[in-house]
């Protein structure tokens, strides 16, 4: 049963993990780069808290929040970022390339959308009643292959939920310079029913996602959920071109942690935060002590 406490726990776990990632990155403990999910936590928790065990999630470069909301392990994600053999993909994939159970992410945008559509069709062929959820951002609306996938998903009635997280900025490019026309109409034009929400409240996102996921499962057909959201952090690290005032205003009005946290008694909230902080710190320390991988002879 997901009460307000558990929802807060899930939201705060993502928040604290991502803050720790940004905090520790300058120390050199992680490889490569990262794309944090700060500000968007209610999307992943709201949508993925309804999944059944065999349901499939396909994610993008900004995947930590999706992975953690799916149920992924903190220690193994830290280990992956640190390039350890205990990482989600043994250090081969890194921040953007995760696979665990039925969770898949790839850092190349667009191509994941037909991929997820094909997974949904395979499940339809198996009559498994499994639902596939694929996350994409407003920036990915510029990739042509997603429209090929939407067309086929509608023609062949794939049981898939497309979740657009519109944080209104693609790396540094504001949506006004990148997305013409209407996002909602992009889906309905293909005959894919779509719903949009402008909210950071997990209690608003959850029921909308539940309804759409139920329709996908019961009617074996595609749906889209467009979530207008806010990214509090930089695209990756230190590459935010937006003003501090702008970010402060977003955090002031649209913080999913604040919104859900206000529903808790302060003692409960403090206790949960302390628990999560300890959990994240332990996962970090454990990953730090893990061995580095050995390169296997290339398979061919």
């Amino acid at each position, binding site marked *: 049963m997901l009460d307000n406490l558990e929802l807060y726990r899930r939201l705060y776990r993502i928040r604290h993990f991502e803050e720790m990632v940004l905090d520790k990155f300058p120390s050199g403990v992680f490889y490569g780069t990262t794309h944090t999910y700060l500000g968007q936590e209610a999307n992943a928790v709201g949508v993925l808290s309804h999944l059944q065990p065999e349901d499939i999630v396909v994610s993008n470069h900004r995947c930590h929040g999706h992975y953690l909301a799916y149920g992924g392990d903190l220690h193994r994600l830290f280990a992956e970022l640190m390039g350890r053999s205990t990482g989600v993909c043994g250090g081969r994939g890194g921040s953007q*390339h995760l*696979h665990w159970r039925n969770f898949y992410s790839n850092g190349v945008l*667009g191509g994941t959308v037909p991929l997820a559509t*094909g997974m949904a069709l*395979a499940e339809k062929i198996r009559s498994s009643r499994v639902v596939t959820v694929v996350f994409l951002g407003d920036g990915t609306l510029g990739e042509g292959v997603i429209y090929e996938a939407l067309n086929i998903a509608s023609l*062949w009635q794939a049981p898939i939920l497309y979740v657009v997280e519109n944080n209104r900025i693609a790396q540094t490019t504001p949506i006004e310079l990148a997305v013409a026309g209407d996002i909602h109409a992009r889906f309905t034009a293909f005959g894919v029913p779509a719903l949009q929400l402008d909210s950071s409240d997990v209690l608003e996102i959850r029921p909308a996602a539940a309804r759409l996921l139920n329709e996908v499962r019961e009617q074996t057909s595609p749906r889209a959920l467009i979530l207008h959201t806010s990214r509090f952090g930089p695209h990756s690290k230190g590459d935010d071109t937006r003003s501090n005032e702008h970010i402060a205003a977003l955090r002031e009005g649209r913080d999913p942690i604040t919104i859900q946290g206000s529903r808790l008694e302060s003692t409960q909230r403090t206790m949960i935060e302390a628990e999560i902080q300890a959990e994240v710190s332990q996962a970090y320390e454990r990953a730090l002590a893990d061995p580095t991988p050995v390169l296997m002879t290339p398979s061919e």
Partner: protein
Amino acid sequence: MPNVLEALNAALHRAFTADERVYLLGEDILDPYGGAFKVTRGLATAFPGRLLTTPISEAGITGIAAGMALRGLRPVVEIMFGDFVTLVADQLINHIAKFRWMYNDQVQVPLVLRTPMGGRRGYGPTHSQTMEKMFLGVPGLRVLAPCWLGDPGGLLAQAILEDDDPVVFVENKLLYLMPVQNENNLAEFAPASVAYPRLPGHPSGYAPIFTLTLSQAPAPVLTLVAYGYMAELARQAALRLAYEHEIFVELVIPTQLAPFEIEPVIASAHRTGRLLTIEEGTLSLGWGAEIQTRSTEALGPGLRASRRVAADDLPIPASGVLEAQVLPDVNRIVQTAQRMV
């Protein structure tokens, strides 16, 4: 004796019968049309629901097939013309070829992408190319090229049914109407010696490398390496070189282009001391260059002569007169061979 087209078509029928996880996605593949080159003819009638005719969306259907493969099916994608593989490059390179390794060997992508390549039909710059060199050397991607020799249908069926990794299956258009020939019964040649590329995780590779020597001929002084339809031109050149110029050659015909098993080439070039590679793709930075380099690295001064025959570095012209000048032919092979000995 079936031709290559009939052999590939029969192989698809066999694969669909053998394993209900086999699906095929492509454009204009339904009967009675049966695909632009008819390789899928009859499948839609025999296996309704498993032959999925698609919109003109090469990247989309390749991505969809990748998703199907990740979730336990064994999809085949037909790309109507090999020239269009540029449209699926992202799917092949950044998704399909990557998944198994980057997900730490936790997944497999048993997918076959078949496509006709090659010129000599007057289709011009965008429907005549030999594009596979762009996909050679991509880690995680196997590239196969059947020829008229051996069992091209069996090669396709094994790729679909037995190979758990992604395969690009290159079918030269001019092979389609050539009769399939037994490698041990080829006129004027001794029975072929056959090797297989190493495939870790498999008991043995399945894509044969044929080595052919003229029967009752003196020791060969030159090795020709060619694949696909060019193997046929190399065969014709081998006979002309023997009869008209008394130059005796050995012919090495791989059917797996990537990852490449160089040993049979090195073994032959070590015997003959000379190596001529023949390809229909453009000359520069291509397959032949790699074969020559690897052979030179292995043989050093033991390789006395080394040359490539390939298409000129030009788009393929539509005019048959111009096309014949751009693409390599038997004359070019014979003349090049003469200069090497």
